[in-house]
């Protein structure tokens, strides 16, 4: 007999009193607002993006210039003034930021999680966790400023041909920014590993190192992976740091080539901000291209969030 059933019995008669109904429906409306938000995001992005593409624009009753879906998805030039809307350069820059920040944040984040969950004393934890929260709490525009004014000049002393605006320092700050996310979610997963597993390991003569790497990490692998995916989705959606630090020149780069990180590029989010800070008029093709990129971004992050959820649920070790 769960307590919920008990509650039901005790409150049934008063449930339909006007006061109860009123408060209940207010709370329900608040909860439904989140669905309304999601729906309006989806509807807005799809209708506005539909006005952008030449295939769907006639259906929406839009006159004027449009872009073809194929050109949008495969075009290698992003020049607003020439109405060249190829999204590939933007996607490649976003991908570069994602990979670069992953190189920084994933190892550091997991190491932090292992330290916090397995090694740190309660006192050290109580100091380190708020400090890590501060890392995530610094506004992203500030990180962008740090990248341009302090990190890039510092890196220039090592790599002389680094551009003023470059992907390297942008990736580094985005990486630092998402360390706390990787660390806190992974740490939750590691703390959820039952102590009996650790005790068993020690009983077999394993050292703390063996237990951490050989038992705790494998047992919490699904949580660690889901933290990776969530953090990378955050890196993809990261806006101000890359807008300030990565430059505004859209060029197609190869994210797997380290030399490409020495120059600037224009990730999707930065392209959106640039579109708006330039003079675009409401309803023009540039305005609608904004929603096309927004839709791309939304779909990518949504899919990643869902995958992260699935990984966390499907592959969770049950104890």
């Amino acid at each position, binding site marked *: 007999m769960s*307590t919920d059933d*008990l*509650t039901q019995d005790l*409150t049934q008669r008063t*449930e339909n009193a006007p*006061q109860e109904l009123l408060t*209940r429906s*207010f*709370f329900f*409306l*608040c*909860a439904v*607002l*989140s*669905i309304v*938000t*999601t729906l309006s*995001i989806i509807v*807005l*992005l799809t209708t506005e993006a539909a006005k952008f593409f030449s295939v769907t624009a006639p259906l929406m009753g839009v006159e004027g210039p449009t872009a073809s879906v194929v050109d949008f998805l495969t075009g290698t030039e992003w020049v607003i003034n020439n109405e060249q809307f190829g999204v590939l350069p933007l996607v490649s820059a976003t991908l570069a930021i994602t990979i670069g920040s992953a190189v920084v944040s994933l190892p550091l984040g997991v*190491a932090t999680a292992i*330290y916090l969950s397995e*090694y*740190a004393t309660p006192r050290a934890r109580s100091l380190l966790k708020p*400090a890590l*929260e*501060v*890392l995530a*709490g610094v*506004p*992203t*525009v*500030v990180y962008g*400023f*740090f990248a341009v004014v*302090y990190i890039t000049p510092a890196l220039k002393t090592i790599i002389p041909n680094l551009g003023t605006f470059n992907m390297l320092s942008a990736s580094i700050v985005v990486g*630092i920014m998402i360390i706390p996310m990787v660390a806190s979610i992974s740490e939750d997963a590691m703390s959820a590993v039952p102590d009996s597993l650790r005790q068993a390991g020690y009983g077999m*003569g394993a*050292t*703390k*190192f*063996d237990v951490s*790497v*050989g038992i705790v990490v494998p047992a919490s692998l699904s949580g660690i992976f889901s933290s990776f995916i969530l953090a990378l*989705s955050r890196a*993809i*959606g990261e*806006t*101000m740091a890359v*807008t*300030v630090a990565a430059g505004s020149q859209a060029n197609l780069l190869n994210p797997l080539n380290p030399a490409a990180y020495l120059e600037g590029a224009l990730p999707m*989010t930065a392209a*959106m*901000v640039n579109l708006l*800070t330039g003079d675009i008029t*409401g309803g023009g093709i540039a305005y609608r291209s904004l929603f096309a990129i*927004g839709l791309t971004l*939304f779909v990518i992050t*949504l899919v*990643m969030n869902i995958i992260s959820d699935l990984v966390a649920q499907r592959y969770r070790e049950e104890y």
Partner: protein
Amino acid sequence: MATERGTIESFGHVSRTAGTVFRYLLLAATLFGIVALTVLLIYVANDAIRPLTADPGWHLTFLLTLVLPTLAVGAYLFRTDPPSFRFGGAIVGTLAVSTMFAGGVAMLFVDIVEPITWFAYVLALCLALGGVVVVERLDRRLPFLVRFVAAGVIVLVSLLIVPGAVTSLPVYPSDGVLLTLSVGAPIALVVGRYVAAAEGRRRRFAAVAATLVVVGLGAFVGPLVGVTPVPATVVLAVAVVPTGGYAIGQVRRNPERRAGLGLAGVILGGTVVGAVAVDALGFAGPQSWVDWGFLTSAHSGTAADAGLYPAIGGSILLMVTVAALSFPLGVGAAVYLEEYAPDNRLTRFIDVNISNLAGVPSVVYGLLGLGVFVTYLGQSTGTVLIGGATLALLILPIVIISAREALRSVPDSMRQASYGMGATRWQTIKNVVLPRAFPGILTGTILALGRAIGETAPLIMIGAPNVLFSLPTELSSKVSAMPLQVYAWASLFASEPFYQAAVPAGVVVLLIVLLSMNSIAIVLRNKYQSDQ
């Protein structure tokens, strides 16, 4: 090394070196981000405040009057009496944070809301609440719906009629008196509540009267030290009274901690003595970019004259709007999901949906604001209202998630006890669950508000202006915000002077505001956790 690495395969070879190295590698990784950020913060603070441009004599004076005494007293207390040490630190921290807060409130009354308007609305609100209380007293005699409608009518009538009537009066008291009544009185009532809880009802009236007198004195004492009545009254009401009340209350409850007062006295006294001495001896302070001029002037084409004032005011107004929108909606949704929702498909869908919304990039929320509020609802771009609404939608999932955690931490036995006394569900939520979960909800909301204050991208998307020369005065005027101004300086006015002067100064102010919000939240949370 590599041969010594003890894994499961090489069972039996236990290596202490590998374990130690691993441990320190982990520690280094943990500290990497923190140390990197600290170094960057030191750099930016140095660029903004420029402590090295001060006279050596200036540093020496403050070293003698402030730093050495504080270190000596602090070290002594820290070793002999840690609770007093923490108490002294808490007083200084409270004073610093509340003074900053008071600065923001004073700004509201100087430039945004006339004290008489504010007074009129406070009066209207009091009348409305009084009316509702009277109606509620008739509890058993009237059915709920009648009471509800009557209360609604009273609230509407007093809110619609009273402010207009009061502001159109031909003569009214001075600003100092108005603020004493409309800002000081509510604070005095709060102080009275605490005193009543701690020392009984008889002391309560003395405390309320004392608070009102202290706040009322501001209008007379302020001009003597060169502060106009409005800010003086506000600073007394919002900063001095709460800090003093906290200090007095703690000392009365734990007399053994009064040594902490000494620490606070040394720090505050040292600051004042140092400032007077520096002035008398003619030592020049640092040529900081974060100075009074920077905080109180608007943007300028030359970096050295550029200021943050409209952006600070905009951030304050946005914060108020965001809090007013997201707090009731977020807590409401959390209450529904935790207390009412049956375990069905809709609930699970809302659940998944909220966690997905928390992962949507902020720039997409900006697009939502642009598309829905500007294009479809035809609002003009970049106003306080749509900026606040967009940011509220952005932090709503975070508020909901943290409020749910706080509600979940209320033990079920308390709910059952309340039901057992015959309370209805809403009575249980109102009287048992929400009060108990409130500190947790507040912590989550403050953290989420900090996130909203730091956001730039959504504001750019809804067309907030990069440069604004005056404070927004109503919900429908254009708004700028601190991070937006920093972005404008860092990108649109990108040049060496701006990178060296205005941007670091803006970053420092923004970070001070955010860090103090975060620390309030963390202090609240620690207190809350240790209370349970």
